[in-house]
Structures are given as C-alpha cells and as structure tokens.
C-alpha cells in the first residue's frame, strides 16, 4: 500500500510542478465556459435581416423582430449582400419587402435554424396588422421532465460538455509524464523494489485520478457557483465524477504505456481527445448527428458520461436512474485500467 501511495505522490508532484500544464488544466476550461457563456448568453441568438428601403412597414418589421426573445432584427439595404451573409451563416434569414408590398422569405436551406426562422418571420409579418405596441401572444414554454418548476441555467449543457471534454484532455496529455518516467528508467528501477507492476499501475493511475477529479470538481464548482448550473442529484454527480475521472486516468496511463515518446503524446493526445469529445457530443449536441455517427458516438465514454449528466441535470434522475451509464462507464474504467496495466507490464519486462 505504501509503495502505491509513493507512486501517486511522486507523479502528483511532477504534475504540480509543471505550472503551464496546471494553467492549461484550470484556466482554459474556465475561460472557454466564460467565453461561450458570455457570447452566447447561454441561448442562441438568431439574426434576421430586413431587406428594403426604409419605410413605416420595414421599420415596424425590424422593431417587431427585435421585440422577440433571442431574435435580432437588422436592416440590410442590399439584397445581394443579404444573400451573401446568409450563405456564410452570418445571418439566419432575410425578409425582403417587394415593390408590390408583398413579402419574400429567404433562408439558408442548409441551416437548421432557417426552419424556425421562417416561423418567426411569419409571426412578425402577421403582427403588422395589429396596432404598434400590441402585447405578444401568451405562449407557455416548458421543459419536460421532473424539473418543470426548476429554471435551467442556459449554461447547463455547455458546462457538462466542458467537464467531460477537459477532464479527458488533461488526463490524456499528462500521459507524457509516464512516457518520460518509463524512458528514463525510473519505472524499471521502481520494479526492482518490492512494488509489482500492478502496484505501479494503480499508483500511477491514482495520481491521474486525483488530477482528473480535481479538475472536474473545479469545473463542477465553477459551473454551480458562477453559472448557476444545477447539476442535480449529488450522489449521482459524485458517482459520475469519480467514474469519469477513473476512465480518464485509465486512458492517461494507457497512453503513457503505449506511446514511444513524450513528444508523440503531446502531439497526438490533444487532437485525439478533441475528436473523441466531438464524437461523444461534447461540442455539438448529438441530436444533429446522422445515424451512423450516433452509433460511433456510443462507442466513446464521453457519450455515456454526457448522457448521465443530462439525465441528472435535465431529467432530475437520481443515481438509480443512470444505472446504464454508470455500468458502461465502470466497464470502460475497468478495461482501460486493465489494458494499461497489461501494456505497462509488457513494456517493463
């Protein structure tokens, strides 16, 4: 037991000494949350252009659009310029005031948002028959699930995505430390002590686990305190945090055991982690994935962690409600740690 903790401590000290990695690990995820948070304001903003010469009608349309939540209406005199903005996704849709007084809608057919934009445009035009300043129609909008009376922070999804993405990235890139230890013979020397390969793996994984857990806790807390994210059931949260930190540490040690050089870990680690995270749904919600990609997504631990968090946050599930996710993640953690131990054993013998 002592030999295990000796490893954990030594590796942790090395990790802590690397100030820039600490910066990478703590500052970057928070900065990303802040940037995404403040620029998106949590909700997407849709810009709709009104094309036509200034007139009472077009002025009114612009202000009707601006009166709607999450919609920005702006004037664009030139139709070709408007089309160009749409093609570049710089604006979502355009409403053209024709010379004969009729209206034409232009949307980017390849954007999902254009469907919603058409409904919005219709609603704004319909309102032109009402006197200016008429109240908006009363429409009740509600999230499904148990949480119908709990206001959701608009950051909830982003926070969960970031938590999963960054915990994994850090764990993976920190694998370079193991490569260094392996190549310098430190690990081989450690083998000559009574500690076995198993103890060494557990010891190393222990420090990665602490690292991953500290980082995810940090994102968890910043999410809760600064962005009002309600992470849901605390027991479920703790189990998810621990399991995903275990998955990350298993992956980190595995990478450390397999890669021939530190340089390779540093160059291959981040893009690999980004690809896995993207596939797992950490960057774009999986609802837009085509079916085959959704199948691929289910192969990543990220997918399951994220599903677990969404159940906890949005559906107010308790630990028992995320049984499948917990089981899959536990399976991932066990197999990654097992593989890492086997790979390390092969490398050291």
């Amino acid at each position, binding site marked *: 037991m002592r030999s295990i903790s000796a490893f954990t401590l030594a590796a942790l000290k090395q990790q802590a000494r690397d100030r820039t990695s600490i910066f990478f690990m703590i500052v970057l995820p928070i900065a990303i949350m802040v940037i995404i948070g403040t620029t998106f304001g949590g909700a997407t903003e849709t810009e709709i252009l009104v094309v036509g010469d200034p007139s009472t009608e077009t002025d009114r349309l612009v202000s009707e659009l601006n009166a709607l939540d999450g919609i*920005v209406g702006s004037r664009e005199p030139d139709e070709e310029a408007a089309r*160009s903005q749409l*093609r570049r996704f710089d604006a979502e849709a355009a409403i053209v005031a024709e010379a004969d007084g009729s209206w034409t809608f232009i949307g980017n*057919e390849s954007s999902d948002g254009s469907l919603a934009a058409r409904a919005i445009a219709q609603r704004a035009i*319909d309102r032109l028959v009402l006197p200016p300043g008429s109240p908006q129609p009363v429409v009740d909008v509600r999230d499904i699930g148990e949480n119908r009376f709990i206001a959701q922070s608009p950051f909830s*999804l982003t926070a969960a995505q970031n938590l999963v993405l960054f915990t994994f990235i850090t764990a993976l890139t920190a694998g370079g430390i193991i490569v260094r230890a392996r190549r310098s013979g430190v690990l081989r020397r450690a083998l000559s002590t009574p500690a076995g390969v198993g103890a060494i793996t557990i010891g190393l994984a222990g420090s990665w686990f602490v690292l991953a857990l500290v980082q995810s806790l940090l994102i968890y807390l910043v999410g809760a305190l600064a962005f009002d994210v309600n992470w849901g059931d605390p027991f479920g949260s703790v189990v998810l945090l621990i399991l995903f930190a275990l998955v990350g540490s298993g992956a980190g040690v595995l990478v450390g055991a397999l890669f021939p050089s530190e*340089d390779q870990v540093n160059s291959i680690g981040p893009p690999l982690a980004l690809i896995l995270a993207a596939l797992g749904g950490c960057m774009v919600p999986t*609802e*837009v994935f085509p079916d085959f990609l959704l199948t691929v997504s289910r192969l990543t631990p990220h997918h399951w962690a994220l599903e677990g968090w969404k159940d906890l946050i949005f559906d107010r599930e308790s630990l028992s409600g995320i049984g499948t996710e917990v089981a899959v993640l536990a399976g991932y953690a066990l197999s990654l740690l097992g593989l890492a131990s086997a790979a390390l054993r092969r490398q050291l013998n």
Partner: protein
Amino acid sequence: MNALSAHAMFTVATTELRRRLRSRSALVTAFLAPLGLAVVFGTMLSNTEASTFDIGIVDAGGSALSAGVTDELVSFDEQASDEQEGSIVFTVVGSEALAEEQIDDGTIGAAIVVGATGEILVLKSPDRPISAQVGESIGYSIGGSLQTGLTEPTPLATAPLGGRPLNVMAYYGASMAGLLLFFTVGTAARSMLEDRDNSTLPRMLSGPTNVGSILSGKVLAAATLGALGFVVVWIITTAAFGATWGSPAGVILMIIGTVAAIGGVSLFIGGLTRTPQQAESAQSVVGFMLALIGGAFVPPTDTPATLRTLSRFSPNGLSLQGFSALNADNAGIRDLFPTLVGLVVFGLVFGGVGLQLSKRSVQI
C-alpha cells in the same frame, strides 16, 4: 542579409524540415490531426441539410378551436412537404403526458399543446436545443395568428437562396488546419530552445553564422511544413469529401496569409518562454483560446454576433472570414485584400517582436 547568412538559413531550414518529416508526431500534427478533426466536424455538421424535426401536436382542449389549429398544422405539413423535403413533420400525439414521454425517448423533438381557448404550451427538452427552438417558434407563430385573428397567414413567399452556401467541410478544414498551425509553426521557437539546451546551438554558432540566420531557417522550415499541412487538408477534403473551398488562387493566398499570421503569434508566444516544455504548453493554451475566439469550434450556423466581432482580433477568426468568403461567396482576390492585409499585419507585428524575443531567450 548577405550570401553567407542566406546559405546558413537554407541549410538550417532543409535540415529542420528533414527532421520534422522524419518524426511521426510532426506528421500527425501537420497532416493527420487537422484532417481527422476536419472530417469529424465536417461530417457531424454537414448533415444538417437532411435534418428532420418531428414536432408533436396535442389537442388538449377538445374544442372546435383547438381541433382546427391541430388540423391546420397537420395540413400545413402536407403542403410544405411538397416544396421542402421533410424539414418539419407534425404528428398528432394523444396527450400531454404521452408527448413528454415521446420527447424524452427521442420520437419527437418538441411538442405543441393546444388548449380549448387557444392557449399554447410548448414542451421542449434542454438537451435538444435546436428542436426546442423550432417548436418554440412554431408555438409563437400559432399564438400570434390566433391573436391577430387572421384566418389565413399573411402571404410570405419563399425564394431560394441561390449560390452555394458555406461548405461546412471546407470551413472546418480551414479552421482545424489553422488551429494545428500553432503546433506546427510553433516548433520554430521551441526547436531554438531545444538546440540551446543540447548545445547544438553553441556548436552552430562556433561556425561562421549567427542566431538570426539559424532562427530564420527554423521559421522557414516550420512555415513550409505548416503550409504543406494546410494544402494536404485542402486537397484531401476536396478530393475525398467533396469540400468546395473556392478559387484556388485565393485559397493559396489565404493559406500563406494564415501561416504568416499564426506563425507570427506562435513565434511571439515561444519567445516569451524559457524552456521547450513551457513553449509547447503556452502555445497550445493560446492556440486553443484564439481558435475558440475565432469560432473554430462553434458551428458557423450558431456563431453569435458578439463572437463574430471578437473573432476579428484572432488570427484564426480573420482567416476563417477569408476562407468563408472564398467558400460561400466565390470571392475573388480583390475581395480578400483587406483580410489578407490584416493577416500579414498580424504576422509582421507579432512575428517581428517574436523574432527579437526568441533571439534574446537563447542568449548563451
């Protein structure tokens, strides 16, 4: 620069290039990683053209009014399906509880519940933000038409956009190649620090050469590799994934401008650090931040206005604007001019200071 310095610069550049091309990790960083990321992101998001949104309709009121609204929506669906392929599909769902269940299991994306006197309730799920947005806007639209008392909506013709919308694969190709440039071009400053540490730099300096020529050689090699990586992403996404980047001459100019801008910034960052490890982490931190601000990870459809303004201060953002103009507007070289100037200015300012810093940091 005299002939001797130029000779030293090219000698360093060719050797540096040979070493990078021999290292597997450099190949991954320069070629495989941007390609892999571009393909994953491109595939993930190019799909939006075929997306279908299933919206459930619940007639909760059982009145003539609510039945009328429900019917109208279903028939709207039938009309719409003629002109637009399966964009929104309305399905009648028996009850509010059933609708919640179907949203939860993914059968429908959102639901609109119509009450007896025309009260509208939209049910959505926060983990499907796009369906939620569609459902919500339709809900408001119905609410609006009930309020105005219009039996028929004001005619709103739909005109096709025309031209070619932004090609998502090409967009992500440029965005990911730009992100990875921080790692490829960043090796110049890092390699200087490594050479100082293992004494190859003093050894070079014991010959008839100086720090400036050696550093320029390394920058030249790194920039060449970065540009090659960009070109490979361009060719492969075009040939294998049907990406449309726009006019080749424009693409080549944009690649040069992007390499100059990002190379300058990464040289600057490298010059501020003292060890190769520090340089590497600092470059990745700054690289990710600038790429993020530049909109590299955000789907182009979702970029909010604030981020678009902010992105002009990031070389990645500036570069993406140029590539988007080429890609979606078929922009010519003249249209690209302001962007190119911006990129080159970025490169010159940061690269110039970076060269000085980097020279200073390897003083023996």
